[in-house]
């Protein structure tokens, strides 16, 4: 006896509508995924373990949508944990390819006769492509599924990685780095996939960990590429200018291999791939104009796009410049400079997930105001440590400051995506996408302003970047949620969560009941009031959402 599906299942998601396709990016939307019913009805028999389409029982405890309720990181149970590992690994490989050139820059710049402007342009180009591709990836995931989305992007950009071996001049170098950079859009497919596989209670951890471990690719590559280069030079005996070209086959081959593995072993949804499932169910097509309108008229979107540009954007910038900085300023050799640079990216192992955890802890105690304070504090501390990094002239302290800086900047990324889901319910896709794109725009702008010209040295550029981080984080003080307050102001007594999320629908839409999905979310969002309010109400809301023959472990 299955209860009737709640009516809020009618959703505003429709196939191919831009903006609607970015659901899943933050991981807090999955309750409202489009109704994808399997070809065969899967009324789980009470008492029997739930099974997928082919009758195989799931190895993890799952909810009524067959999404996993736990994340068992050290397993590869199909389909959930396998999807987790394929997802973060494919994102990591793309980071690896995008930032494969920077650790070898001291050799590449001599071979291709690059000057500072060329190197700066290439750095800008490497992150600029993803501004567009991240926005498009949402649509691709909707149409083809995250498995095809990730793997096709990887297999299409792999030729660009191989073309790096053919480059002989600065223009070629900039172009190749631009095309390789498109693959950073696997961030979207990674988050989308996690949201399809994991339920609301754990999707935050799954998404934060997958994104953090993916970002680690920017660190690992700084260790691997110099190592490969040295092996080719000494063991194979190639000269410098040939060795780095051969070294580029490593990221290329790994990218192709992982792309194919994702295609073979990946699965879009717990019950099967998109091609095996049929889309059924009533869908309400939301108007793209309305969704877009409510996004662009929400000032909070711009503020968080700016602040994400100064945490994630700064992270991308540092991935591009830091190896060369340590090589030149502290006279380290290629391998040592790469090791130091790697430590920055490797902090992602725990920094970004920890940022999300800190945001959740702050919210449990102080609600949304706690999240805002947490985000502002961590990102400002990141800016201050960046300023110190630009000033420090000794190697030991510089490394310590670099590690501190990496922690704050990556944790700030985690805290930002702790706030994004609450900005809007209706336009969540566009806002999430805009924030992500804002990260890349921040990287483009920062590199263009501070690291393109020679009028001041790189350390001064880092100092200015730190100042800019602090200044561009100040707008967080102006983010005000009427139902929860802001950093310096308390909530308005007359506005509730329901009022806030209902205001995105006009009277006509409300009379047709289109806002009901948002109301369910508003109920859950009462948890953002903090420990003295509504945590019980929030729990009730979440339990309602998952009621449908919920399976015991």
């Amino acid at each position, binding site marked *: 006896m299955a209860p009737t599906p709640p009516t809020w299942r009618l959703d505003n998601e429709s196939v191919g509508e831009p903006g609607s396709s970015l659901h899943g990016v933050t991981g807090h939307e999955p309750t409202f995924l489009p109704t994808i019913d399997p070809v065969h009805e899967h009324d789980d028999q009470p008492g029997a373990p739930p099974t997928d389409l082919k009758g195989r029982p799931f190895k993890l405890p799952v909810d009524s949508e067959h999404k996993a309720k736990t994340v068992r990181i050290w397993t590869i149970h199909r389909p959930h944990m396998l999807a987790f590992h394929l997802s973060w690994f494919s994102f990591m490989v793309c980071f690896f390819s995008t930032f494969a050139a920077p650790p070898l820059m001291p050799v590449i710049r001599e071979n291709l006769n690059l000057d500072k402007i060329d190197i700066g342009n290439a750095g800008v180009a490497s992150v600029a492509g993803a501004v567009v591709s991240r926005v498009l990836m949402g649509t691709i995931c909707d149409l083809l599924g995250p498995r095809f989305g990730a793997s096709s992007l990887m297999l299409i950009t792999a030729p660009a990685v191989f073309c790096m071996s053919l480059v002989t001049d600065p223009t070629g170098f900039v172009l190749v780095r631009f095309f390789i950079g498109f693959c950073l859009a696997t961030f979207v497919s990674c988050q989308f996939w996690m949201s399809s596989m994991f339920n609301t209670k754990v999707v935050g951890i799954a998404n934060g960990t997958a994104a953090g471990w993916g970002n680690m690719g920017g660190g690992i590559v700084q260790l691997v590429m110099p190592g490969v280069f040295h092996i080719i030079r000494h063991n194979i005996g190639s000269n410098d*200018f040939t060795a780095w070209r051969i070294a580029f086959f490593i990221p290329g081959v790994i990218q192709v291999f992982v792309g194919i593995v994702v295609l073979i072993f990946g699965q879009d949804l717990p019950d099967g791939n998109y091609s095996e499932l049929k889309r059924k169910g009533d869908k309400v097509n939301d108007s793209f104009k309305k969704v877009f309108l409510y996004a662009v008229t929400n000032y909070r979107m711009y503020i968080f796009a700016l602040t994400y540009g100064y945490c994630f954007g700064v992270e991308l910038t540092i991935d591009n410049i830091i190896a060369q900085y340590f090589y030149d300023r502290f006279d380290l050799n290629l391998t040592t400079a790469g090791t130091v640079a790697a430590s920055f990216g490797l902090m992602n192992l725990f920094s970004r997930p920890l940022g999300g955890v800190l945001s959740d802890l702050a919210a449990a105690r102080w609600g949304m105001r706690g999240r805002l304070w947490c985000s502002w504090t961590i990102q400002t501390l990141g800016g201050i440590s960046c300023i110190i990094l630009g000033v420090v002239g000794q190697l030991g302290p510089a490394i310590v*400051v670099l590690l501190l800086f990496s922690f704050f900047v990556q944790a700030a990324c985690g805290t930002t995506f702790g706030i994004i889901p609450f900005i809007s319910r209706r336009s969540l896709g566009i806002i999430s996408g805009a924030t992500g794109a804002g990260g890349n725009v921040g990287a483009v702008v920062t590199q263009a302003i501070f690291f393109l010209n020679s009028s001041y040295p790189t350390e001064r550029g880092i100092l200015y970047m730190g100042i800019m981080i602090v200044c561009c984080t100040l707008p967080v003080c102006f983010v005000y949620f009427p139902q929860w307050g802001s950093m310096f102001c308390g909530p308005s007594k007359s506005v509730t969560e329901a009022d806030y999320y209902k205001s995105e629908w006009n009277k006509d839409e409300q009379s047709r009941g289109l806002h009901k999905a948002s109301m369910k979310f508003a109920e859950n969002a009462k948890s953002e009031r903090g420990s003295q309010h509504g945590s019980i109400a929030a729990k009730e809301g979440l339990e309602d959402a998952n009621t449908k023959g919920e399976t015991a472990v």
Partner: protein
Amino acid sequence: MAFELLQCHLRILFLWLVAMALVLAAEGGVLFSSLEETMVVTADIQGQNWTDGPRIRTARVGDDHMLIKWALNSTLTGLGVDREYTTVKIRLCFAPISQVERGWRKTNNDLRKDKTCSIPITSQKYTTEGNFTDWTIRRNVPGASYFVRVYVSDVNGTQLAYGQTTDRLKTSNLIIIQPITGRHLSIDVASVVFSISSVGALLGFLIAEFRRMK
């Protein structure tokens, strides 16, 4: 609780940072401006003849040899100027035109930080009669405009004097070195083959998937 722990650790790290930052790094090296130009250096590219006038010569990596001769300036012989001269280091240096927008080749008066002459050629013992060396240009020498400089140092390695093939402004008598590209036919072929395989694999899977959907 996690926050308090974090704050505590932060304070400790910050204090340590301040302490480290206060440690002196007094590592001043010899200043180039304090050195005298007592050596005379010439560099010839084998097989090329000089002519008077603005001399810019070209050399190809791997093919061409450079014959570098150095000696104490003949007007200074017998004056005891070279009492402490022990070692002569011959280096290939970037001309100003090749340093533009390239901070990693920047000239600094402090010789410890100077990056002008970052390509070593060889090192020889100092003799009053002078010496020469025949150098095949190494394959990892980048394409740029160069001159040759010799540094004379004492027993401890402290630079005492220098000589160079160009004038003070470093604009005359430059050598343009043409580098190798580093590309090989086998690498080019491998790139193309791998690229085609990558796109081919994707197309194969896409076709298989669409067939299955039907």
